């Protein structure tokens, strides 16, 4: 099975994240980049499926040059090779253009299964998996907490408001995963060494047949008009329980008219 797993580099959530004052995009240079957490679960699921059914796992990242760190991490976990979609023209792409660019790259790579995280920690739109399914004309098997492949048929358990749905489709398909699905492995020392030799192909927009007028800040379907730091939250009152902690909370709730 030919599995492509989409991995995004995001700013470490432990650092202070900022928008740039010039073009109002996320300042990716100012902070340490890490692998988007949920994408580690996507990589793990891809590796497990490969272990069970054979095939190859390709990592796809769209991002600036330094996103190679993220690619190496996924390769160290056990992915076979990577494609790095990187071009200055892609800077500032919104969800529409990102999904377009990634769909073009996926068509070029070819796939039986595309696996993504269900959400990034930076933009948190959660729309990319659905957009890719739409653009690729492949069944949307998103928010999966369990994936089973049997020949060319695939079944997932999709998280819902009330529990989950069992969903069936035929490959090729687009899957997104939630963190309940597995426990991502840590790269072994051997894995880290091996990753240095695994092939990473860099694609520019022309290589992936991406139209320049459909990507980047200028083409974005949506724009940030203005932004400002949120006013700091007023410091709260913290008390130590001295046998009356519950009663004190009740007084607070009464002062706010909740009771």
């Amino acid at each position: 099975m030919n599995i492509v797993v989409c991995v995004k580099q995001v700013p470490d959530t432990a650092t202070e994240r900022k928008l740039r004052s010039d073009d109002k995009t996320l300042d990716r240079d100012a902070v340490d980049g890490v692998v988007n957490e949920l994408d580690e679960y996507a990589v793990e699921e891809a590796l497990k499926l490969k272990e069970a059914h054979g095939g190859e796992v390709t990592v796809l990242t769209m991002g600036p040059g330094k996103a190679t760190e993220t690619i190496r991490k996924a390769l160290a976990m056990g992915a076979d090779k990577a494609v790095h979609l990187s071009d200055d023209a892609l800077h500032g792409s919104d969800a529409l253009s990102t999904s377009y660019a990634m769909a073009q790259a996926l068509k070029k790579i070819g796939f039986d299964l595309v696996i993504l995280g269900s959400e990034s920690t930076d933009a948190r739109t959660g729309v990319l998996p659905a957009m890719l399914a739409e653009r690729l004309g492949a069944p949307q098997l998103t928010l999966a907490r369990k994936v089973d492949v049997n020949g060319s048929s695939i079944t997932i358990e999709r998280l819902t408001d009330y529990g989950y749905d069992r969903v069936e489709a035929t490959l090729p398909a687009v899957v997104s995963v939630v963190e309940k699905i597995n426990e991502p492995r840590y790269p072994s020392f051997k894995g880290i060494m091996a990753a240095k030799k695994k092939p990473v192909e860099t694609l520019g927009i022309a290589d992936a047949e991406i139209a320049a007028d459909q990507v980047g800040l200028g083409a974005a379907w949506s724009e940030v008009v203005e932004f400002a730091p949120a006013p700091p939250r007023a410091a709260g009152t913290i008390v130590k329980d001295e046998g009356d902690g519950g009663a004190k909370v009740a007084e607070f709730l009464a002062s706010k008219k909740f009771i």
Partner: protein
Amino acid sequence: MSEILVLVEHVDGEVKKVTLELLTLARSLGSPAAVWAGPGITADAKARLAEYGADKIYVAGSGDVVDHVVAPKAELLAQLVADKSPAAVLVAATAEGKEVAGRLAVKTDSGVITDAVGLREGFVADQSIFGGGVNVQSRVRRGTPIVAVRPNSTAPEAAAGAGAEEEVTVSLSDGARAARIVERVKQEKGARPELTEAAIVVSGGRGVGSAENFAIIEALADSLGGAVGASRAATDAQWYPHQFQVGQTGKTVSPQLYIAAGISGAIQHRAGMQTAKNIVAINKDPEAPIFELADYGVVGDLNQVVPQLTEEINKRK
């Protein structure tokens, strides 16, 4: 006045509160048109939509629309966008609502704004990003604005609309039928308000200690008429079903009051609750990061504090 399409969220024939919020919001921007996907619309549901301002109610009552994952709803909305040229489309910013918005955006070649907490003239949306650290105003500049609005962002207010019903037949593509829902597994729900819609949410974490002990969290929630939530540590331990998980990969809640008991306040948990208007934390560790967010915090054992609080509330009723 231009129509604003509002995708109705409904369960067991009942309209969810978030839809009433979206209708209220739509009224300030144009003429609200509710879109009902799937079978089971009732006279009560129609009356409710009209009561909150729906001038039109489009009903696509075929089962096909809800028996496949997301794509049919996007095709339905795309057809209505083509036929009715609405000024905007509003959906609830739930995990599924955002997926519908995403597919619709691709289909209609339109921009999409996710997780709006406000929406003003010119369809300028407010977003709260980076863990609530930055406030952003954003706007769609190509196509029909598609905006996913967070539940509890607007107070629903009744103001009657015409409620004219129109049946819609949507011709689904084969592609939209590609992911078939073959079984729906409903896990216990109970009589409590739904998590994302509740004005008050009481959540328990690892500090609760066991599934049985969640009873004290439930008792507190019930005394306040609130919903129960849980951290990932609690759902992973199977102390509480995972559809009640609050956080990055659980539900995003934005209630008037959020009470966190035995929850440390990890960034992934905060991602799901930091836009709550008032936050109360109960934790035995004074260094727990949740206290940085709390309007009111008690450093103490939740096994003492929570039952005492419940008792106080019940006494005051």
